[in-house]
């Protein structure tokens, strides 16, 4: 296990932890998430709830697998994360292509409708998770200095936290409504 893989683990753990907390932490957040899936998913009413539950469960399981200091679990977690993010990417890309305006509830509340930015974000995350999995499989020699491991993990975790608020960060650099600046 090299330091890059530790970093990826930190990133995905933090991100999915925030995602799960955002979907089940607040009363009503989960049903709101379920409702946001309705226009996206090609399944009927009752199945949507099952899909929403499955998404949250898989996200939680990925967190757990990545925290455990056991290489097969880590690998399974990374591969699952890659697959999950790839599915998200495809589903959102389809919805954007169809022109549906669903609000992103990936991390609980959000004001932004799903758009190209989310497709790119999830695509990049999926590739990062994939590269992390590849790094674990091929196992290029990495040190195991506990200090460095902690630094790599924390770096990843901070990056994962930032990924969850990327919309807010982007909005900071957008101009205010035109009528305000006229």
């Amino acid at each position, binding site marked *: 296990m090299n330091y890059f893989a530790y970093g990826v683990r930190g990133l995905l753990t933090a991100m999915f932890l925030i995602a799960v907390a955002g979907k089940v932490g607040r009363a009503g957040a989960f049903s*709101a998430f379920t409702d946001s899936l309705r226009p996206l998913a090609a399944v009927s009413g009752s199945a949507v709830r099952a899909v929403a539950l499955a998404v949250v469960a898989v996200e939680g399981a990925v967190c757990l697998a990545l925290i455990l200091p056991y290489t097969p679990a880590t690998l399974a977690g990374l591969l699952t994360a890659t697959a999950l993010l790839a599915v998200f990417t495809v589903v959102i890309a389809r919805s954007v292509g169809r022109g549906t305006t669903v609000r992103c509830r990936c991390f609980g509340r959000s004001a932004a409708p799903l758009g190209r930015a989310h497709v790119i974000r999830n695509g990049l995350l999926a590739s990062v998770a994939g590269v992390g999995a590849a790094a674990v499989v091929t196992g290029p020699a990495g040190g195991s200095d506990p200090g460095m491991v902690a630094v790599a993990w924390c770096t990843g975790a901070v990056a994962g936290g930032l990924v969850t608020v990327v919309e*807010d960060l982007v909005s900071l650099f957008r101009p205010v409504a035109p*009528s305000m600046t006229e």
Partner: protein
Amino acid sequence: MAALTSAVVLVGILCVLDLLLTIGVIKKLREYGPAGPARAPGRGMTPLRPGEELPPFTAVSVDGALVSRSLLPDEALIAFLSPNCEPCRAKLPELVAYAAAEPGGRDRTLAIVVGEPEECERFVRELSSVARVVVEPRGGPVCAALRVDAFPATLRVRSDRDRTVVTGHMVDLAREASPR
């Protein structure tokens, strides 16, 4: 060496704390800042006046039924509320009582609850037994179509010969809203 390590850890913790605070500020800023051209000052919508025709709109209520202008019964009441506004919270029990007393059951009253779904839960729960309830985000399609940007707001409409006309603002709810 131990001192250096501890110092770096301390600085790291401080940075993360700063980052969290900054993100908190950004989130607050987005909550209060202009959410788009519709909410910029001086660009308010002119509310519908009695006598004007009700613009067409369609929505899906929380129980999955289609709601639209053509499906409104005669003398229907449309109420707009948001869980984020103090007067709306104060008026909610009054509206529930009023809607319950309306002849013609829950179809007679249409409540548009504006906000994030999780915020609206209580409003929806209390209203759905006496009215058709639609939940939509701020600046959503129904409010945009019916030119409502201040809450609470109410419209009483009359449908006659395929025209739907606004006949008034209900006094007991409108009293709270500032006269414009």
